[in-house]
């Protein structure tokens, strides 16, 4: 069975390798500081105890006040997986160091995250929109991409038909 690392375990290992790299710890993930992200991730890859040579997954999450970039690191030899995160507060020009230098497999996922979230990955060799065309207005996976009239946001807050209030009319977005 794969060993799923908890946030604390990963944080402890990362602190041992690169002191001062951890910013926050959650139950499932360890949140690193952006400034030494590349350093700690490459240390985690090369360290024989962690050996996270395979970047399983990379994606972004829009948490309204911040963007998270989620990395699922995997070791094929040790059969273990851990979740690392990095947070960006800046919504105008979000920027995260790129990990393409550590894992080549990151470039396509970073491009996709840039395309859909607008997070710039510093050091990415060829950062451009891959799914949408150049000049597409906005970044679709941001939560404020389709702000509806009346300040409503996309996503269900309640199940259809259970609301006491009448549903607001949906008009095309300007």
């Amino acid at each position, binding site marked *: *069975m*794969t060993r799923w690392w908890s946030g604390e375990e990963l944080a402890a290992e990362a602190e041992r390798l690169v002191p001062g790299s951890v910013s926050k710890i959650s*139950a*499932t*993930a360890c949140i690193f500081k952006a400034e030494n992200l590349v350093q700690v991730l490459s240390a985690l890859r090369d360290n024989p105890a962690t050996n996270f*040579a*395979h*970047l*399983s*997954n990379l*994606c972004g*999450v*829009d948490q309204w006040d911040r963007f998270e970039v*989620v990395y*699922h690191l995997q070791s*094929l030899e040790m*059969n273990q*997986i851990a*979740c690392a995160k990095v947070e960006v507060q800046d919504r105008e020009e979000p920027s995260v160091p790129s990990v393409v230098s550590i*894992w*080549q*497999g*990151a*470039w*396509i*996922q970073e491009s*996709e995250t840039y395309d*859909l979230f607008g997070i710039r990955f510093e050091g990415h060799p060829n950062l451009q*929109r*891959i*799914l*949408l*065309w150049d000049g597409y207005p906005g970044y*679709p*996976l941001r939560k404020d*991409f389709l702000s509806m009239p009346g300040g409503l946001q*996309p*996503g*269900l*807050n*309640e*199940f259809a038909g*259970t609301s006491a209030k009448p549903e607001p009319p949906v008009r095309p977005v300007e």
Partner: protein
Amino acid sequence: MSEIVQSEPFVMNIGPQHPSTHGVFRVKATVDGEQVVDAEMVIGYLHRSMEKLAEERTYTQNIPFTDRTDYLSSMSNNLGYCLAVEKLAGIDVPPRGQAIRVIMAELQRLASHCMGAGAFANDTGAWQTPIMWFMREREKILDIFELTSGARLTCNYMRIGGVAFEIPEDFEEQVRALIGPMRETIADGEGLLSGNEIFLVRARNVAVIPPELAINASLSGPMLRGSGIAWDIRKADPYCGYEQYDFEIPIGYQGDAYDRFIVRLEEMRQSLRIIEQALDGLPGGPHSTEVPLSLRPPAGEAYARIESPRGELGYYLVSDEGPSPYRFHIRPPSLINLSVLKEMTVGGSIADAIVALGSIDIVVGEIDR
């Protein structure tokens, strides 16, 4: 003297409409004569923004979307998504549901590999014959899917907590009737291609991926196993009770297109073994747990992955206790396997590039989502 006779590199578009791109996928290949000197992929022709759409629908409503990502293996996609939601909400699946899921996922792997191996043979120029043989078997599998779920391609069969319906009465009989002919067809395809001198020179030592690169580039599935890396999530991180079944991981020798092809064929044999074992030990009981229709998983995140026919298919879900996922991310194996496209194609000829692309076994619906 070579500067007297020289050729100018020019850009050749392979795709979006091309017989060998398996969908609307485009490779901008810079070629010098017949040699590819640069290759760049252009994707997004089939982008439907599923990750955004999923944020506005309930967890159950999202299952049909997953059908339409990798339309050649909808059962696997259903399964991956349902596993992620179950992990997020802490739902257990009864043993019968798990066994049915395993049978369905393995049948889907067979169907998908039939298409993948056949299309690869087509790309090497074995004009239609292997793919037709494999398609004949695939049709039988799709018939079983139709019998069970009512649909052939977009099955929408898995549900959170189990499967949608009980399997029909003659299901087991039909699946058992399929196994023998399928074995024969695999052996036929192997006899037609694996020892064929032309096929060998076309596929061997073409698009070689060394194991270091395969791991570093996050490859998965037959791409990873072809390079000689023993990695199969069904073994490494068993889900749906895969640990009960006896099967082996096929791995290649040097990571070329030929290795990926023979790995796919062997995987089909192993899938047949799993199906036989699952049918033999099909437990009774309910096929799924009762899950409230208005499912509101606790806040948190979950990443679940399965071994889909194309590799590691992951679903990353974030919940904010709402009725719909706060974030819905698919880790598409086809897209990430494409990250070595340049390494595979540059330096070879156009014909090799086609073989390389065919050996990835891409599905554009999954790449673009």
